[in-house]
């Protein structure tokens, strides 16, 4: 394995790991709200978070540029305050991975939380425990398999992210060329030997993650 392949592998793992940490924290919170709370616009919120699952990744990437680009709604403010833009950095790749992986986490964890017996939650309340306490000690531990499955699925999705990443992080060798992007460049440049090597690595890794996700989600979904 040469240094550029190693760089892409390391970058992909780094991007996927960072994205997954945020996916877990934010995804579990949103999934809990959707599973346990009744509020106006709930289904609209669910639809918005699910959209990246069905939209072409390039469209998701386009929205990210509109929001986080140097002239985007949020990106402009960040640039004015700090002189820094997320565009064409590995952070942008992590952001793209986060957005496309989040719905997988939300869907899986929401189903797991909804399957927790309501009587157990009521029992916890009658024993003096607050909703927050009950969520931490009863609901989330019982939804653990769904959370693990969602985490593994999200990580696998994040590591394979291409379209949105290309839109917002670009294809800068040695900076933002994650494995899927590097494979695209190698194939386009006719370097089939290196492309093969990366394709095998990515396929094996994704296969292992899917196997793990299936193992944990068996009794959840």
């Amino acid at each position, binding site marked *: 394995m040469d240094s550029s392949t190693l760089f892409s592998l390391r970058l992909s793992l780094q991007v996927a790991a960072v994205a997954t940490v945020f996916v877990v924290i934010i995804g579990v919170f949103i999934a809990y709200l959707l599973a346990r709370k009744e509020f106006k616009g709930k289904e609209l919120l669910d639809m918005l978070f699910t959209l990246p699952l069905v939209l072409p990744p390039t469209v998701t990437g386009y929205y990210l540029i509109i929001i986080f680009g140097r002239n985007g709604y949020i990106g402009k403010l960040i640039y004015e305050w700090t002189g820094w833009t997320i565009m064409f950095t590995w952070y942008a790749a992590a952001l793209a991975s986060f957005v496309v992986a989040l719905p997988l986490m939300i869907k899986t964890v929401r189903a797991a939380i909804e399957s927790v*017996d309501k*009587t*157990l939650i*009521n*029992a*916890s*309340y*009658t*024993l*003096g*425990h*607050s909703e927050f*306490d009950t969520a931490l*000690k*009863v609901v989330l*531990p*019982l939804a653990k398999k769904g959370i693990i499955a969602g985490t593994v699925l999200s990580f696998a999705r994040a590591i394979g992210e291409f379209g949105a990443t290309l839109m917002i992080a670009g294809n800068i060798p040695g900076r933002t060329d994650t494995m899927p992007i590097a494979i695209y460049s190698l194939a386009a440049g006719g370097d089939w030997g290196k492309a093969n090597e990366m394709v095998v690595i990515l396929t094996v890794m994704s296969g292992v993650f899917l196997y793990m996700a299936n193992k944990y989600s068996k009794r959840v979904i």
Partner: protein
Amino acid sequence: MSLMLKIGKKVNPVRSSRGALNHAFAKLFWHSSPRQAAGHSASNGVNGFSLDVSWEIGNELAVLFGYSGAGKSLTLQMIAGLMEPDSGIIRFNGEVFYNSSSSINLSPQKRSIGYVFQHLALFPHMTVKGNILYGAKGMDKNIRMQKCAELINEFGLKGLEDKLPSEISGGQKQRVAFARALIRRPKMLLLDEPFSALDAPLRIEMRNFLKDIRAEFNIPVALVTHDLIEAQTLADRLIIYSGGKIAQIGTFDDIICNPANEEVMRLVHT
């Protein structure tokens, strides 16, 4: 679907060993949406079910007796604060748990009522000890451990502390559910058909166990059942539910001798 619970019949409150007068009173009205009605067994999925009951208990074991779907479990859920009535009053020793006219509605956490659910609702991911300790919220750590050890001893659960609920027998699960509900000395105990899944010999054992608990903890107990023998052997006071209404209140012997109507007669003679 509407539900009205009034707990209004006067009884002589009994002074408990803790010196407090234990006396529960409630008066409620609940009108559910059709969606709620469809989700509740008491309505049998039919809109228009109405619960209109009125009872009051002292420091005694009251049995809420009647056919399935009469609204007995709904009543317990409202007393525990797990369901909100539309209006009414629930009071315990003068402390208001719920009062629609002054917008008081204490959360279940603040009512300090022990509740044993029909399927016990033991936390499957916690050990026997973990389940019991979970009921000791807010207690000092040393006291909590001491009370837990006492209950484990007293309820015959020694040696099972580290077992999961799935690894113990039905009778043992019952005892864990009672220990969990009682560890923080609740003001009142609500039991929603806790023995319904047990076989006959174990039921008899658990009835005796419940009598012992009543004697020791000396708090009002409201037990929901549709088992006549259970009602006969346990009830200090029998509250007969019929179609969401109170058909009769009295001791078992009173009701057997003087049933208020034909339906009560059928209920207590089947």
